[in-house]
């Protein structure tokens, strides 16, 4: 572990009775890095957060936060947390919520209140949380998590239930924080949304870490084909299909798979066809595909 490692999880197992919620999971997050934790409902994402916060008994493994034990005073000073589906008391105003958490964290409330500006809800700071929209409540949650410039931000499904625009703005905020040096671990089960918004992804499936790394590397390792969709001129997909093979999708579209290496070769072959082709669309594998590839159970007969 380097001194830039803000979170190190090593061989972590958490069991709730007979249920193994996390199964020998190892991962780490460096200073200034954003790691997205992906996984279906019940994959163990929230359990991982709770273990990192020191709330759970570890069946195996260790967790270090900025070189301190989870739940220790030092770790709690370094960490900020936004739980999933958190509902602040409706009767408090936004600035009262921030003041409260600033006092709990031993930070000056005046400085913490500026964060309402940062997340863009300063106008509503004197209004009760009960009147806030879902997006505003998540921004308030993020402002709360940013109090005292934490070294490690833990955000559990921070954008679930947000519309795409609020979601984008939320990630922009997270991006800004990461650029100031914080390490960010955030979870999501919405797969495409973290694409390009995070440095690395870790995929959990039924408590097991099935993949971890840069998205491009994961896509490469999965060797998922690039899909080329060719639109036939004059709605004559059959003729096109006869020439180039692949899959006939409908009366106008034919789809080809091609590896990353021979993309150019395929394209020049298509260009040489001239008049038969009306249009070409290239679809590179997306996070959804990569995710599906890694989280599907191994087919029977596959070598383990």
């Amino acid at each position: 572990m380097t001194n830039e490692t803000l979170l190190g999880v090593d061989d972590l197992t958490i069991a709730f009775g007979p249920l193994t919620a996390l199964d020998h999971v190892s991962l780490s997050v460096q200073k200034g890095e954003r790691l997205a934790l992906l996984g279906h409902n019940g994959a163990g994402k929230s359990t991982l957060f709770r273990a990192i916060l020191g709330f759970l008994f570890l069946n195996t493994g260790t967790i270090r936060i900025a070189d301190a034990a989870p739940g220790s005073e030092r770790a709690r000073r370094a960490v900020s947390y936004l739980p999933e589906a958190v509902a602040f008391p409706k009767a408090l105003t936004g600035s009262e919520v921030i003041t409260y958490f600033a006092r709990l964290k031993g930070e000056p409330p005046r400085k913490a209140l500026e964060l309402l500006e940062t997340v863009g809800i300063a106008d509503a700071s004197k209004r009760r949380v009960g009147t806030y929209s879902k997006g505003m409540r998540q921004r308030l949650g993020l402002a709360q998590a940013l109090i005292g410039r934490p070294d490690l931000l833990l955000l559990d499904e921070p954008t679930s239930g947000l519309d795409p625009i609020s979601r984008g703005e939320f990630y922009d905020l997270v991006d800004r924080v990461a650029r100031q040096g914080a390490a960010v671990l955030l979870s999501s089960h919405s797969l495409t949304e973290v694409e390009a918004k995070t440095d690395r992804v870790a995929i959990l499936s039924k408590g097991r870490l099935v993949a971890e790394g840069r998205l491009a590397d994961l896509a490469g390792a999965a060797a998922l084909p690039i899909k080329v969709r060719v639109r036939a001129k004059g709605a004559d997909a059959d003729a096109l299909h006869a020439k180039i093979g692949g899959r006939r999708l409908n009366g106008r579209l034919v789809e080809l798979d091609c590896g990353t290496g021979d993309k150019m070769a395929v394209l020049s072959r298509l260009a040489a066809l001239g008049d038969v082709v009306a249009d070409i669309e290239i679809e590179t594998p997306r996070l959804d595909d990569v995710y599906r590839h890694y989280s599907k159970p191994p087919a029977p007969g596959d070598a383990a």
Partner: protein
Amino acid sequence: MKSLSRIAAVANTETRLASRNRWVLLATLILVLFALALAFLGAGPAGSRGASALTLTAASLATLSVYLIPLIALLLSYETIAGEIERNTLPLVLATPVRRSEILIGKFLGHIAVLSVATVVGYGIAGAAVTLVHGFDPGGALAWTRLIVTGILLGAVFVAIGILVSASTPRVGTAAALLVGIWLLLVVLYDLALLAGLIVDDGGMFTKTIFPLLVVANPGDAFRLFNLAALEASAPVAGTDGLARSLPFPPALALAALAGWLVVMLSAGLARFRRLRP
């Protein structure tokens, strides 16, 4: 220093929530209305000989408080931790540097503050009204002050019980159900059982030795016993039946019993809260 400021932050938020949610107003109103009803609608202290109106109302208020104050205290506190679990704010709070004991003490103090305001204002208004109509007497004023102070202590015991219940279940609904059960058991059924014992025993062993101890062992009865015994020492009040003279121990023991309840319930609450895994 840090610790005190965190306790203050928790207490402050609790009182603010209680006043925003109209609990302070509601609790004060309940106490004022019942106290006024006792003072002016009941058999009426006017015409009684020996004791002043102020003293007599204090005596009946001591009995009424045994029902009202625990109920208000439990209503204030039962949701305090279970509610945070339901709203998922507890893990957020516990992720900050605040200690669990600080959260618990802060919540306790916040609720005591609300209860104190309600009791002082509620009984204060009623006491002032009785004084205006029937006149002032120092003994009566002392009895009201004693009632208010020990009433807050009784309330503190039940706030601590409420916090314990709240830390024992992750569901607000379950906590509410437990609250009703505990109130019935401690405040109503316990007395009925004692009464049944007295009737069956008919002045025997139970009545003379065990009964007084069972009375102080219950927080509500201990509160009533202390107040009535103190009243009796200063003025003859109908209905107390020479209670203080027949006690096998000094009435102050009743206060010690209340303090004991408080310590035990708070410690039990803290122990439960420490074991909670959010």
